[in-house]
C-alpha cells in the first residue's frame, strides 16, 4: 500500500505555478539556486582537490607559512557582498509585488481559528477550508484569527501571511491556471495544526459565476445591516447630532478630535479602513471624530457582544453605505445603554444604567 502511494500520480519536485506572482518568485529562487550551486561546487571541488594535491607526503613535511593575501581577501569579501546586494534588491522588488495588492482587487475575509479557515466573500457566500475564485482576477485576502496565531499559505501561489488575533494582515493573488491547490496553516497552532488545511479552487469564469449564484444566501452586507439595528448602532448613527453618519466614509480620511481621551491638534486625520472601523467598535474611545464628546456614550463592543465574524459583517455593511442610505431609526428602539452579555442573552432587558461614567 505504501509502495503504491509512493509513486502516486501527484509526485512532483516543484510546485505548480498557479498565480501571477509565482514566476517572479521562481526566477528569483532559481537565481539564488544558481549562485548556491556555483559557490558550493567551487568549495567542494577545492576542498577535495586540496586534500589530494597537498596531502601529507612524509612526516617531515613542513609547508611554508602563509599569513594572508590582502588582494585575495578583498576579492572574496567584495564578490559575496556584491552578490548579496543583488539578491537583496531583487528580493525587495519581488516582495513589493507580493505585499502591495492592486487597488481593484476583490476582497475576501479569512478568519483562522483552531482548526479551520472561515472565508467570507463580498457577496455573502461563506466557505470553510475552501475558496472558490475565478481565473485571472485580482483577489485580496484580509486575514485575521480568533484565538492563536495561524498562517494562511497557498504554496502554488507563493503567498503566505500570518493570521494574528487582533490584527488584519493582507495578501493578494491573481490565479492563472484552473485547478485546485492546497491551503495550509503554516504557523503551528495546536493539536490539529496539520488538519487546518483546505483547497483553493480556481475556476473558469462561467463556472465561477454559476457557483456564486448557487452559494448566495444572505450576503454579508445584509447580515451586517441586521446587526446594525440589533446592536443599536442605528440609534445614534442615524442622527448627525448624536454621532457621525457612516455614509461614504470607507477609505476616506476622518478628522479626529480626541485620541485615547486626549484632545489632538486640529487637522489630525486617520484613514477609515477596516482596522479603524474595528477599533472604533471594539474600543470607541480610541479615536473620537472631531466635534463629538470624549468619552463617548457608545459602549465598547467586546467579543462576547460581537464575534469576529459579525464584526466583519458590520464592517462590510458600513463599507457599502452610500449617501442617504442610513436606515431611519424606528421608534421602538430603546435609548442607548451599555450592553452586557447578560443583556444580550435575554435580549431586551431593561437593567439599571450602571456605567454612568461613559
Amino acid at each position, binding site marked *: 500500500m505504501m509502495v503504491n502511494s509512493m509513486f502516486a500520480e501527484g509526485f512532483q519536485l516543484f510546485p505548480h505555478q498557479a498565480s501571477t506572482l509565482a514566476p517572479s518568485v521562481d526566477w528569483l529562487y532559481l537565481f539564488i539556486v544558481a549562485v548556491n550551486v556555483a559557490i558550493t561546487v567551487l568549495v567542494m571541488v577545492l576542498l577535495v582537490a586540496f586534500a589530494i594535491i597537498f596531502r601529507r607526503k612524509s612526516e617531515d613535511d613542513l*609547508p611554508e607559512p602563509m599569513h594572508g593575501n590582502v588582494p585575495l581577501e578583498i576579492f572574496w569579501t567584495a564578490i559575496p557582498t556584491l552578490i548579496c546586494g543583488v539578491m537583496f534588491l531583487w528580493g525587495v522588488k519581488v516582495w513589493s509585488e507580493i505585499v502591495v495588492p492592486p487597488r481593484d482587487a476583490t476582497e475576501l475575509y479569512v478568519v483562522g481559528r483552531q482548526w479551520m479557515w472561515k472565508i467570507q466573500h463580498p457577496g455573502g457566500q461563506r466557505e470553510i477550508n475552501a475558496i472558490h475564485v475565478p481565473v485571472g482576477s485580482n483577489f485580496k485576502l484580509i486575514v485575521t484569527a480568533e484565538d492563536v496565531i495561524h498562517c494562511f499559505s497557498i504554496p502554488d501561489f507563493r503567498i*503566505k501571511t500570518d493570521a494574528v488575533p487582533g*490584527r488584519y494582515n493582507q495578501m493578494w493573488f491573481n490565479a492563472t491556471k484552473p485547478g485546485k491547490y492546497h491551503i495550509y496553516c503554516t504557523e503551528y497552532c495546536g493539536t*490539529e495544526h*496539520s488538519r487546518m488545511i483546505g483547497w483553493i479552487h480556481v475556476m473558469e469564469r462561467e463556472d465561477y459565476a454559476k457557483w456564486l449564484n448557487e452559494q448566495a444566501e444572505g450576503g454579508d452586507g445584509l447580515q451586517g445591516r441586521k446587526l446594525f439595528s440589533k446592536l443599536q448602532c442605528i440609534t445614534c448613527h442615524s442622527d448627525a447630532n448624536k454621532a457621525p453618519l457612516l455614509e461614504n466614509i470607507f477609505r476616506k480620511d476622518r478628522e479626529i478630535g480626541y485620541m485615547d481621551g486626549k484632545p489632538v491638534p486640529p487637522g489630525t486625520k486617520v484613514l477609515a479602513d477596516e482596522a479603524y472601523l474595528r477599533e472604533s467598535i471594539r474600543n470607541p474611545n480610541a479615536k473620537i471624530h472631531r466635534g463629538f464628546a470624549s468619552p463617548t456614550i457608545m459602549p465598547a463592543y467586546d467579543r462576547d457582544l460581537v464575534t469576529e465574524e459579525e464584526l466583519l459583517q458590520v464592517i462590510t455593511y458600513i463599507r457599502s453605505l452610500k449617501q442617504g442610505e442610513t436606515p431611519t431609526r424606528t421608534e421602538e428602539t430603546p435609548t442607548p445603554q451599555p450592553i452586557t452579555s447578560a443583556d444580550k442573552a435575554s435580549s431586551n432587558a431593561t437593567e439599571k444604567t450602571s456605567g454612568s461614567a461613559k
Partner: protein
Amino acid sequence: MSAINLDRRVVGEAASTHEATPKPATNYLNHETTIASWLLTLDHKRIGLLYLVGISLMFVLGGAFAGLIRLELMTPKGDLLTGDVYNKSFTAHGVVMIFLFLIPSIPAVLGNFLLPIMIGTKDVAFPRLNLLSFYVYAAGGVFLALALLLGGVDTGWTFYTPLSSTYANGNVMVAALGVFVIGFSSILTGLNFVVTIHRMRAPGMTWFRMPLFVWAMYATSLIQILGTPVVAITIALVGFERFLGVGIFDPRLGGDPILFQHLFWFYSHPAVYIMILPSLGVASELVSTFSRKGVFGYHIIACSSIAIAIFGFVVWAHHMFTSGLSQYAAMVFSVLTFSVAIPSGIKVFSWLATMYKGSVSLASPMIFFFGFIGLFTIGGMTGLFLSTLGTDIHLHDTYFVVAHFHYIMVGGAIMGFMGGIHYWWPKITGRMYNETLAKISAALIFVGFNFTFFPQFFLGYMGMPRRYHEYPEELQVLNVLSTVGASVLAIGYLTPGIYLPFSFFFGKKAPKNPWGATTLEWTECESPPSPHNFDHNPPVYDHVYDYSTLNKEAAVVSH
C-alpha cells in the same frame, strides 16, 4: 615572508626544560577517585567531563524524539502517533536538543576543558560558579524531564503566545521554568569564560596570540551574556500570563503577541550563533593542525567571529517577515541578515586557503572537518533564500527552513563537535581510538545527513509546512527518503558512542602531541593533563600556529 623568519621565539623560563620534564605520575583523572571528587570537583577539566556525560544523555534523548518524528512521517496519514503525541514529540526534540544539548555542547564541554589550558592558566576565573552552572543545568534538565513525565508540552520550542500562554494543554509552566533555569547555566558559563579570557591569560598571551578556538568561545560567551537574560524575562512573562491569567501577550486581554516574538528572537536568533560559532572555532584548529600550517587570515577570522556575534543581534526579525512586520523594518532586517553571510563566507574561504600548499593529513578529525565544511556551506548558502524577502515569504515555516537550520545547527555544529571530540580525545582521556571506525562514522554521518535533510529543501519549496503530523500523499517519496537517511545518520552518530568509551578503557596510550599541533594543550600538557594543567608559566610564541620548529618525534599519528 618565509619560514626562516618565523622560528619559534620561546619566552618564559620553561622553554629549555619542557622536553626534559618527566611524565607526572598523576593526572586530573586519577589524582582523586572518589565519587565526591567528581561530583564536587572544581577542576574545569572534570566539570567539562560531567557536562560531556550530561549532554550525551540529552543527545540520545533528543535523538529518540527525532526518530519518532521521522518514523511518523514515513506515511502521509498520522498512523503511528496521535497529533497530540506528535506535537509533544517535536517540542521535546526541539527543547532538549537546543537547550540541553546544542547550547552547552561545545562551550561547556570542550570550552571548559580547553579554554584555560589554551590561554595558559590553571583554571577558569570562578571554579565554584563553573560547578554551579553544571548543577543549574542539571536542575533545568530535571524540570524539563518532569514536564515530559507529566505528559509533555505541545507549544513547540518557540513557546509562541497566545498558544503557549492560553491555549496549549501541556505542562508549559514546568517546561518554561526549566528553560529559564538552564538560561542561567548558560549565562554563568559565558560570564566565566569572558572574565577568564580577559583576566587570566598567561604572561605574553596577547589577544592576537590566542588560538582561534578561544576567540570563538569569547564571541559565543558574549552572546550568552547579552542574549540569554532577555529570553529569561520573556519566558518569565509567559509564565506570569499563563499562571495568573494576566494579559501581557494575549490579545484577548489587550496584549500584543508580536511583542513576544520580538523579545524571543532577540535571544533565539543569536542563540544559533551560540551553537555554530564554537564549531567554527574548532574547525580553525583542525584545519591548521592537519594542514600543518597557520590559519590563513588569522586576524580576520578572529574578528569575523566577533562580527558574527554582533551582527547576530540585529537580524532577529527575519523570523517574522510574514507576521505583519512593518515593511520598512522588514527591509532593514533583510539587509542586515545578509551582513552575517559575509564573515561566514570569509571563514570558509580562509580555511580552504589554509589547506592550499599545506601538508594535509587525512586523520579522522580532518575527515570530520571535511564533512563540517560540506554541511556548513550548504546550510549557510541556503540561508540566503531566507534572508531574501521575495523568497522568504514562500519558504517561511516550511520544511525548507527545517532543512536549512538543521544543516547549520546539526550538520555544522555537531560535525564540529564530533571533530573536536576526536581531535582532543587523546588529550582528554590519554588514549587513542580506532581511526578506521572514526572515519567510517564521519562518512556515515555525512551521507546520512544529506539523505535526511536534502530532500527537505524540495519538500519546503513544494510548500510542506513545519510541524505537520499528516501531509498530502504526493509528498511521501521525499519524506521516505528523509526517514531512510535518518536511520543511516543515527548509526553514524551512535558509532562513536561505542568505540570512544571502548578506547577510554582499552585504547592505546596517547602521546603528548599525537597530531603535531602547536597550541598549549598539546605542547605543554601531558595527555591527560595534570590536575593544575601547568607547573610553570607556559611559553607563549609570536604565532600561535607556528609549525616550523615543532618537535617532530611527537607526531606519531599522521593519517
